[in-house]
């Protein structure tokens, strides 16, 4: 009953993964709202304006955000005219970068390879009967805890200065606990990308950064790592506020990992070696590794800070300059730490941060003729577009870290309690919003029933609530789109005949909280076993032999990661070699040392990040050859 106006009502199940470019942007929704009372819009905008002019006017701001977010939360599904189901036409419409032929092909890819005609119409409120509402789920109805941080930076960072967008436009970034506006952020578009690339170009072509010694660059990055640690509390609070991940996770793991990653690449800066290679006679040949130039980097919203570090760390260590496009859902933390990088001594123009949307700012960066290299993390669909735009413009090399549907394989010799716990964390970590989430849990038939029961018990115990509250394990999903999408997948799971053993509904009545959800008796061809849901949904499948599970685990177009849980050395060796995935975690999961390369096989991506391997993404290789006259030896 009370869910009658819920936002996923009457929607078409469409995009299986949260794409960066393809997100239907909040601002688009706002601008296309015709059914809201205009006076309400006006009031909200006035209030916002007041609150912006008077920084102390928090009350006005809260009132404004409350009106705006009520509008957002109660909106009916967007009509096809205002936003296409996949949002893809946003990109193609806004950018006009792809000719209709290419556009057609892309759409075809979508509907054939990824969305095989499944058009499930949901009935409002129908999901309620599946709810297994855990006790811990009441928390989100509490008044949200006020984050201990102020939003200081909302403008674009171009050439060392915080500036407004050329258009003067802004967009709201929302608190996923409530859907309320945290701040309005300058909305970068192609003109801003042009400015940022020009600054980065100048910083690379004429500036000190690629010309200083690697040790000097190393010192800047080390100072930055120290500053991140000094401001850890504020950074973590900002990250949790903007993203909804638990403060325990952002403060305890992610901010330290940013410092760690930066120190790691600081240490590489002065150890980048080319080879001196032998020749068949008469020549001296040596290999120089030089920075590739201006790197365009597009990062996702699920780990805004960590993705910043993975991208920016190696690029800067190698002497490149960068234009970074953050996700529109989470623009805040990158702006904060980018300022710290400048405080650490980074010259102007070396790192430029443009907040904005994929179809506009992102597409402009990908197509830019002045960008020498692209690195993108996000959905596979968007990755394809990034690669196309790179190909159509200046053939810039592209690194892609895309989606996944990673298997987590529990063998029959495993300690079931440990396996359950690890599999639980593999899928539910970060609200399930991990590209490498272990979302296909393959369990050997001999331990299957016990595993399912214990997984249910574990999921039901999972504490969902305000991510700022101590003891909370799971915060809200990033936004309404993701929230809707996940619940549609839950419905699809039920409809396709899987057994819902835990969760299945939202938690509370505001924000984007979803119950930890577990499906058993899933089949390989169900959408919940094939698509990347990017939410707290565990799909448990049964297998009976090693060869079978290898075949089934590999039967996906993804290949990002895999988990293996066994005591058997031989099973571990066999599986870790046989699985077609970029990372295989044996008796562990989500181990993300700065030193360990990460990236996908198949459609999970191109190239590797982290470790020594990430340096390759940001270095050119130059062979220098000259004749040798009468050398003593070769």
């Amino acid at each position, binding site marked *: 009953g009370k869910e009658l106006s819920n936002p996923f009502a009457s929607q078409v199940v469409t995009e299986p993964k949260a794409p960066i470019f393809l997100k239907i942007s909040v601002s688009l929704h706002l601008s296309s709202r015709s059914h809201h009372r205009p006076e309400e819009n006006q009031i909200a905008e006035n209030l916002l304006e007041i609150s912006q002019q008077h920084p102390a006017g928090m009350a006005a701001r809260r009132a404004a955000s409350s009106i705006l977010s009520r509008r957002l939360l109660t909106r009916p599904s967007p009509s096809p005219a205002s936003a296409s189901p996949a949002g893809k036409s946003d990109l193609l419409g806004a950018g006009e970068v792809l000719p209709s032929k290419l556009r057609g092909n892309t759409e075809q890819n979508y509907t054939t390879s990824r969305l095989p005609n499944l058009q499930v119409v949901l009935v409002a409120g129908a999901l309620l009967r599946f709810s297994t509402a855990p006790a811990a789920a009441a928390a989100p109805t509490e008044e949200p805890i006020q984050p201990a941080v102020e939003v200081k930076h909302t403008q674009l960072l171009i050439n060392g200065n915080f500036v407004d967008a050329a258009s003067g436009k802004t967009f709201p970034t929302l608190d996923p606990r409530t859907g309320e506006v945290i701040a309005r952020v300058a909305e970068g578009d192609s003109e801003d990308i042009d400015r940022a690339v020009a600054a980065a170009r100048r910083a690379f072509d004429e500036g000190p950064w690629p010309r200083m010694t*690697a*040790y000097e660059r*190393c010192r800047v990055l*080390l100072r930055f790592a120290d500053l991140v640690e000094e401001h850890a509390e504020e950074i973590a609070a900002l990250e949790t506020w903007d993203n909804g991940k638990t403060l325990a996770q952002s403060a305890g793991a992610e901010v330290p990992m940013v410092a*760690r990653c930066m*120190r*790691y690449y*600081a*240490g*590489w*800066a*002065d*150890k980048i*070696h080319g080879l001196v290679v032998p020749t068949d006679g008469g020549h*001296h040949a040596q290999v120089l590794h030089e920075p590739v130039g201006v790197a365009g980097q597009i990062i996702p919203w699920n780990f805004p800070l960590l993705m910043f570090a993975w991208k920016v760390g190696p690029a800067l260590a190698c002497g490149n300059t960068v234009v970074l496009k953050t996700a529109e859902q989470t623009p805040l933390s990158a702006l904060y730490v980018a300022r710290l990088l400048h405080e650490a001594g980074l010259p102007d123009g070396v790192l430029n941060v443009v907040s904005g949307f994929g179809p506009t700012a992102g597409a402009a960066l990908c197509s830019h003729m002045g960008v020498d290299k692209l690195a993108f993390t996000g959905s596979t669909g968007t990755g394809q577009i990034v690669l196309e735009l790179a190909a159509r413009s200046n053939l810039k090399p592209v690194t892609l870290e895309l989606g996944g549907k990673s298997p987590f394989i529990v063998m029959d010799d495993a300690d079931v309690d440990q396996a359950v716990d690890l599999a639980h964390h593999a899928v539910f970590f970060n609200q399930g919003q991990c590209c490498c989430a272990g979302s296909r849990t393959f369990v050997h038939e001999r331990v299957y029933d016990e595993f399912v029961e214990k997984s249910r018990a574990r999921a039901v115990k999972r504490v969902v609530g305000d991510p700022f509250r101590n003891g909370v394990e799971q915060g809200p999903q990033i936004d309404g789109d993701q929230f809707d999408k996940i619940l549609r997948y839950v419905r699809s799971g039920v409809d396709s005949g899987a057994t819902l053993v835990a969760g299945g509904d939202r938690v509370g009545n505001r924000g984007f909280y979803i119950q930890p959800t577990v499906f058993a008796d899933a089949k390989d061809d169900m959408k919940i076993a094939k698509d990347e849901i990017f939410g707290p949904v565990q799909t448990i499948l049964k297998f009976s032999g*090693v*060869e079978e599970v*290898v075949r089934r685990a590999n039967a996906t177009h993804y290949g990002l990661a895999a988990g293996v849980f066994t005591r058997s*050395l*031989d099973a571990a*060796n*066999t599986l870790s*070699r*046989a699985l077609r995935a970029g990372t295989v975690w044996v008796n562990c999961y989500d181990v993300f040392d*700065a*030193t360990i390369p990460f990236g996908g096989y198949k459609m999970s991506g191109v190239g590797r990040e982290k470790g*020594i391997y990430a340096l390759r993404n940001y270095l050119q290789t130059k062979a220098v050859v*000259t*004749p*040798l*006259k*009468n*050398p*003593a*030896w070769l």
Partner: protein
Amino acid sequence: MAAAAAANGMSCGGGGGGGKGFEVPKVVVRFTKLFINGQFVDAVSGKTFETRDPRTGEVIADIAEGDKADVDLAVKAAREAFDNGPWPRMSGYERGRILSKFADLIEAHVEEVAMLDTVDAGKLFLVGKARDIPGAAHLLRYYAGAADKVHGETLKMAQRMHGYTLKEPVGVVGHIVPWNYPTTMFFFKVSPALAAGCTVVVKPAEQTPLSALFYAHLAKEAGVPDGVLNVVTGFGPTAGAAVASHMDIDKVSFTGSTEVGRLVMKAAAESNLKPVSLELGGKSPIVVFDDADLDMAVNLVNFATYTNKGEICVAGTRIYVQEGIYDAFVKKAAELAKKSVVGDPFNPRVNQGPQVDKDQYEKVLKYIDIGKREGATLVTGGKPCGDKGYYIEPTIFTDVKDDMAIAQDEIFGPVMALMKFKTVEEAIQKANNTRYGLAAGIVTKNIDIANTVSRSIRAGAIWINCYFAFDPDAPFGGYKMSGFGKDMGMDALEKYMQTKTVVTPLYNTPWL
């Protein structure tokens, strides 16, 4: 003497230079005892030895004199720290963090340590402050950044096997370091060993024990666990020999003379066959070709020969100049040498301080005498400077023959031997006519000559149109009797690692 020096245009300040236009800072010696297992302790014997100020020959401090019993205690502490302590068990990153802190502490004490090296070794104070001491911090940071970059490899086996290598720290390392660069040499040795996860026993030179003890103190402050870094001051035949022959030391690394290097290697062979790396003497050639910019070449050669009063193993001491510019070169080199200001190393105007001690001073003067007797022409210098301390004039010999002692032996003083050559082939042949092979310089604008000669000279470092181009990332060490094993760069890290190969069968894998 002072008058003669003045006539030569040389300011032979000697010890008497103090107080004239510059201030000799008050040097406080805080640490004089052995550093074992995180504590400063007296020698077991209770004995001490004097360390002297080469500016005056006066005693600076009495230092605990370590002997075999002390080395035993130090090794026991290092063994325990390696076998059971946290150091090799913590992550490379954690070790790197501690080494970074160590580097920061050194930077915070630059002035104080630079002073110690100046009074202990007669090194130029300004150079210490500007280069040597910050250089030590730089080196530590390099290896701090390397500690988490130790990679084993997975292997392509020819069988159905999974094979991989692990790089593991070698264990307890004995380091014997020389007196000419007390700070630099200490960190050449200690930084990569600590980064690798080894524990160390350092025996500094008896001439220059002060800064090493200070660094031990800073290491502790930075968080290096007790027992990981031990410093035993003392003499080579006693403490040094005990390190080289110790059955519980897993690796010994020595920098010093070729004669002592041989003793170290013998002791290692006769004890537990511990691997040895040696960075020994040199008689490095600089080959100046006709096409060189003459002034640049003269300046470079002057720098190469006289830096640190010639007390540097890579000193460019055999200078081969092509016949076309030989005469002009000799004239300018002599003029430049005469301009050099010899005097108190605390004086900022001084280019050259005193030799480290009386023995070295007398040895250098003896070689100058031999040069004259062998028939070489003394163009400039050749005499002591001042009336106290161990100062010697920058000295140049011409008409030197390849087989003269001054062209073959490492003098370790401010003595340049100038020789003439005609062709590239002759230059290569002459440059290689030595039992040493530490470094070489080439001065030319010609790319073909630069490439040919740099490949043809048998030496561990070739500097083309530059000299002393040391860098943390550039491996350094000798060919031939100049030693083996590299300091600096990632090569040095390798030196303190064991390689372990792990193999296990594979069943039913789709590929190998």
